[in-house]
C-alpha cells in the first residue's frame, strides 16, 4: 500500500500498460502530450512530501488533538444534534457518496428519489409547495432570496429590511448578494428580543422589496407576531422571507400560515455533526415563483415504459443553460448533506422531530431558570419563549466570565460587555449540571 514516491497511488497503470498506451498514442512519454510553452511551464516542485495513508491519519489526528476538549453550549446559527449511526452508514454507501449530479437520470434514480423525498419533507415542514434540493447554507440562501425578491417584485425601491438581531456574518453574505442587484440593507429594531412590529410598520413602504425575519431569532427567541409581519410585507407587495431550521419548523408556526413567501434557513441541523459551520441551506417558496427559484429541482415524470421516474427539471432557470440570465450561479450544491438530513428526519419520524424540538424549548427554559437563580446573572434577558438558546446578563465583564468558563471546560458565546449566550440541545443537555456549577464559581 505504500505507493510512496512512485506517483499517484490512485492511477492503476502498470508500466507495461503505460508503455502500450504511449505507443498507441504515438509518443515516447507523457511529457510529449503537454502543450505548455516553456516560458509558463512549472518544474513540479511544490515542496509537498508524499505521506502514507497511515502517516496522514496519525498527523491529522495529532493536529486535531490540539483542539481543546470543551463542552460546547454554542449555537447562534450552527447547532449540533445527535446524528444516528444509520445516517453515516447509509449515506456513506459509495453509490451515493461517489456519484455526480444526476445529468443522466435513467441511471441515477436512487439519488433523485432521495432528493425528491427531501424536497417533500421541506414542503411539509414549511407548508410551501416548492422546495429546492439544497443551497450551501442559511446565509447564502438568504442572499438568493433577496435576488429573487429583486426579480419578482415590481416595486420601485431597493430596500431589504433585516432584524437588528442578526448574525453579522449572515448580514455580510446577504450584503454581497445584494450589492450586485443594487439592493440596500436596512435594519429594523427589536422589542425585547423579537421584531418591533410598530417600528417595522413605520418603516415599510413602496421602496421595500423584502422583509426578513427569523424564527427563532439568533438569540433563541420565538417570534410572536409573524402573521403581522407577513401582512406588513404583503401590504406593500414586498416579499416576506422567513428564516428557520428544520427542527424548529417541526413545532413552530407553519410559515405558509403566517404568509411567508420564501423560507430559508438551515436543514443541516439534521444529518450533520457539529462541523465548524458547514451547513445545508433551505430554499422553499410559493408556487408563483417556481420559475425564479435558484438551484436544482427534482421532479416526477414518466419513463418510456410508462412508469414513474424522477429527473432534474426546469433546468432552463440554471446557469449551464441560461448563463448570465440564470436565476443563480449555483451549480454544485449540498446534495449529499440533503440525503443525510432526509435519512435523519426519516429515522426520527414526526414524533421524534416534535419531541426533539419540544425538548429544545424545555431544556432552554430549565437552564435559564437555573442560571437566573445564581447571584450576578439574569436569564433569560428577553422575556420571551425560547428554543435551544437564550441570552444571559452578567454583572461581571462577560469576556472574563467566558474565559473562566472555558478554563472549566465549557464554551459559551460573548455578545457584549455584559451579555453571554448559551445554547442547549440533546448533545449537551447531560452536562448542564456542570455548566451551572461552573457558572456559580466564576460569576
Amino acid at each position, binding site marked *: 500500500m505504500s505507493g510512496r514516491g512512485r506517483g499517484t497511488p490512485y492511477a492503476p497503470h502498470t508500466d507495461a500498460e503505460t508503455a502500450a498506451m504511449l505507443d498507441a498514442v504515438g509518443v515516447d512519454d507523457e511529457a510529449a502530450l503537454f502543450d505548455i510553452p516553456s516560458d509558463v511551464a512549472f518544474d513540479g516542485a511544490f515542496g509537498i512530501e508524499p505521506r502514507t495513508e497511515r502517516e496522514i491519519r496519525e498527523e491529522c489526528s495529532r493536529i486535531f488533538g490540539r483542539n481543546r476538549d470543551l463542552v460546547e453550549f454554542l449555537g447562534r446559527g450552527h447547532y449540533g444534534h445527535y446524528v444516528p449511526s444509520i445516517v453515516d452508514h*447509509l449515506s456513506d454507501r459509495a453509490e451515493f457518496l*461517489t*456519484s455526480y449530479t444526476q445529468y443522466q437520470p435513467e441511471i441515477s434514480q436512487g439519488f433523485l428519489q432521495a432528493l425528491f423525498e427531501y424536497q417533500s419533507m421541506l414542503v411539509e415542514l414549511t407548508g410551501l409547495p416548492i422546495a429546492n434540493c439544497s443551497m450551501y447554507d442559511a446565509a447564502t440562501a438568504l442572499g438568493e432570496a433577496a435576488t429573487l425578491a429583486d426579480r419578482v417584485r415590481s416595486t420601485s425601491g431597493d430596500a431589504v429590511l433585516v432584524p437588528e438581531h442578526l448574525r453579522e456574518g449572515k448580514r455580510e453574505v446577504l450584503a454581497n448578494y445584494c450589492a450586485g442587484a443594487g439592493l440596500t440593507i436596512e435594519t429594523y429594531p427589536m422589542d425585547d428580543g423579537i421584531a418591533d412590529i410598530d417600528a417595522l410598520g413605520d418603516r415599510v413602504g413602496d421602496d421595500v422589496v423584502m422583509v426578513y425575519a427569523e424564527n427563532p431569532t439568533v438569540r433563541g427567541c420565538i417570534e410572536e407576531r409573524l402573521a403581522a409581519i407577513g401582512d406588513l410585507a404583503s401590504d406593500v407587495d414586498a416579499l416576506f422571507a422567513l428564516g428557520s431550521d428544520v427542527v424548529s419548523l417541526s413545532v413552530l408556526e407553519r410559515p405558509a400560515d403566517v404568509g411567508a413567501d420564501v423560507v430559508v434557513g438551515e436543514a443541516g441541523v439534521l444529518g450533520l455533526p457539529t462541523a465548524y459551520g458547514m451547513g445545508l441551506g433551505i430554499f422553499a417558496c410559493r408556487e408563483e415563483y417556481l420559475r425564479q427559484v435558484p438551484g436544482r429541482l427534482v*421532479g416526477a415524470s414518466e419513463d418510456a415504459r410508462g412508469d414513474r421516474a424522477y429527473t432534474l427539471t426546469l433546468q432552463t432557470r440554471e446557469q449551464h443553460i441560461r448563463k448570465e440570465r440564470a436565476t443563480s450561479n449555483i451549480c454544485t450544491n449540498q446534495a449529499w448533506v440533503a440525503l443525510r438530513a432526509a435519512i435523519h428526519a*426519516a429515522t426520527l419520524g414526526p414524533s421524534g422531530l416534535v419531541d426533539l424540538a419540544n425538548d429544545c424549548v424545555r431544556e432552554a427554559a430549565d437552564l435559564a431558570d437555573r442560571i437566573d437563580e445564581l447571584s450576578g446573572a439574569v436569564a433569560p434577558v428577553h422575556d420571551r419563549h425560547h428554543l435551544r438558546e437564550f441570552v444571559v446578563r452578567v454583572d461581571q465583564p462577560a469576556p472574563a466570565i467566558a474565559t473562566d468558563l472555558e478554563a472549566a471546560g465549557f464554551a459559551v458565546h460573548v455578545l457584549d460587555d455584559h451579555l453571554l449566550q448559551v445554547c442547549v440541545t440533546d448533545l449537551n443537555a447531560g452536562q448542564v449540571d456542570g455548566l451551572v456549577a461552573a457558572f456559580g464559581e466564576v460569576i
Partner: protein
Amino acid sequence: MIHDQAKYTRDGEDVHEPLLAEKGETTVDVTESSPLPDDLTRDELTLPEPSEPEIARHYTRLSQMNWAIDSGPYPLGSCTMKYNPKFTEDVAADPNAAVHPDRSERSVQGTLELQYRLQEFLASIGGMDAVTLQPPAGAAGEFTGILVAKAYHEHHGNDRSEVVIPASAHGTNFATAATAGYDVVELPSGEDGRVDVEALEAAVGDDTAALMLTNPNTVGLFERDIAEIADIVHDAGGLLYYDGANLNALLGRGRPGDMGFDVMHYNVHKTFATPHGGGGPGAGPVGVVDELAEFLPSPQVREGSGGSGYERFEPDHTIGKVHGFTGNWLVLIKTYAYIARLGDEGLADAAAKAVLNANYLAERIDLDVPHGPFHHEFAATAGDRDAADVAKRMLDFGVHPPTTKWPEMVPEAMLTEPTEIENKSSLDDLAAAFNLAYADTDEALDTAPNRTAAGRIDQVGAARNPRLSWQALDEE
C-alpha cells in the same frame, strides 16, 4: 460489457422503490405535546415514520439504482470524476474535528493549523500568495474571486462595469459575473478553439474588470498565448481570473500564478478527489496574488508572532463573508489528506496519467475529435448522430456517458474526461461502449436505455407539469 441496473418489480410491473410516504405517514398533534402556547405552534406534523430496518432497506435499494465512480467509468467532461480515497473519510470523521465555528482561537488551534497548512498547499499548487478556504463550491469561489476583483478596482477608484468571458466557458462564469453586478462581454472562440487574441484586444478596455479564463479550456486545449493574453488584460487595467475546473491537467507542469493570473478558484471535488456526493458538497477555495490579499473574505488564518500558535484575522479591506461560517470544512479536510497522500510526484503523475488516458481513449474511439492537441479531456463529435441519444445508448454498456452537446463550438459534442483512475482495459471498455453506441441503429438509439432502473425519461413532460413533491403526486 453489459450492465443491468437493479430494479424491483411486482407481477411484471415496474414498481421501483416506493416513496417513503407511500409506505405510510404518521400525523403528530403538536399543540398537544408542545410546552409553547398554541398560537406559537403549528397544529400538526405529518411525515413518514418508518422503522430502522425499513429505512436501511429503502436507502440501500435506492443506492442500487444509482451509478457512481465506484461502479465504473464516469467520464463526464469538465467534471473530473476521480476515485475518492476511502481513508480521507476517516480523517474527516475525527471527533476532535467536530467543533463549533464560534469557538475561541485558543481552543481550536488544531483546526486553525490544518486550515493554515491547506492554505499553504493550495497557494503553492496555484502559484498564488494567499488563499481563502471559505467559498463552499466552485461557483461560490468564482463569486468570491470576482467580488475581490471588484473591491480591488473600487479601492483604486476605478469604476469598471464589464467581465469578459470566452463563449466556451462554464455557464457559472457568466452567471457569477451577472450576480456580482457586471455586464458580460462574450468572447467568440477562435477557429482553432482557443482565445482569438485580436478579438480579445478589441473586447477589453477601460470598462474591463476581469477576463475569466479556463486553461486548458473546455475542449482541453492549452491557451498557448496566455502570456500575451495576460499582458493585454493587464495593460487595460483588468485582472485575470483563472477558473480552476481543469486544473487537474496542469498539476506539476504549470501554475496559474506563473501564467499571469491574479485570482483563481480550486474545485476540490475535481482536482483533489473529494467525493461529489451526487451534486455536492464541494468547496471552492480562492487564491490571489499579494495585491489582492487585503480584500479576501474574513476571517483568514495565519501563524501568530513568536510561536503563539495560529490566529484568525480580518484582511484590511475584506469583502466580508461569502458563507455564514467557514465553508464546507469537512470537505476541506479530505482535500488536505488527498494532497498530502500524493505529494509533488503524485500530483504531477495524476496530471500525466489523466492526459495520457484522454489521449489513449480518443485514439480508440471511432468519433472525430476536431480540436487538439488536447490534455485531460477532449470534445468528440457525434457528427450526424444525436449526441444525447448516443449517450443514452452508452448507459446500457456498463459506463456513464460523457457530457453531451457542450461546449457548443463542437457540433453534437461529447466532452470526455476519463481522469487518471482508469486503466487500459477499462478505457478499452469505454471505447467499445462509445463505438457500439455510435454505430447502432436509429431505433436502438431512440429507445435507449433499456437496462437502467428507468427507461428514457420524459423531460418535456417533467417541466410542463412540474410535480416536485409527494404532496404534488397526491393531488392528482
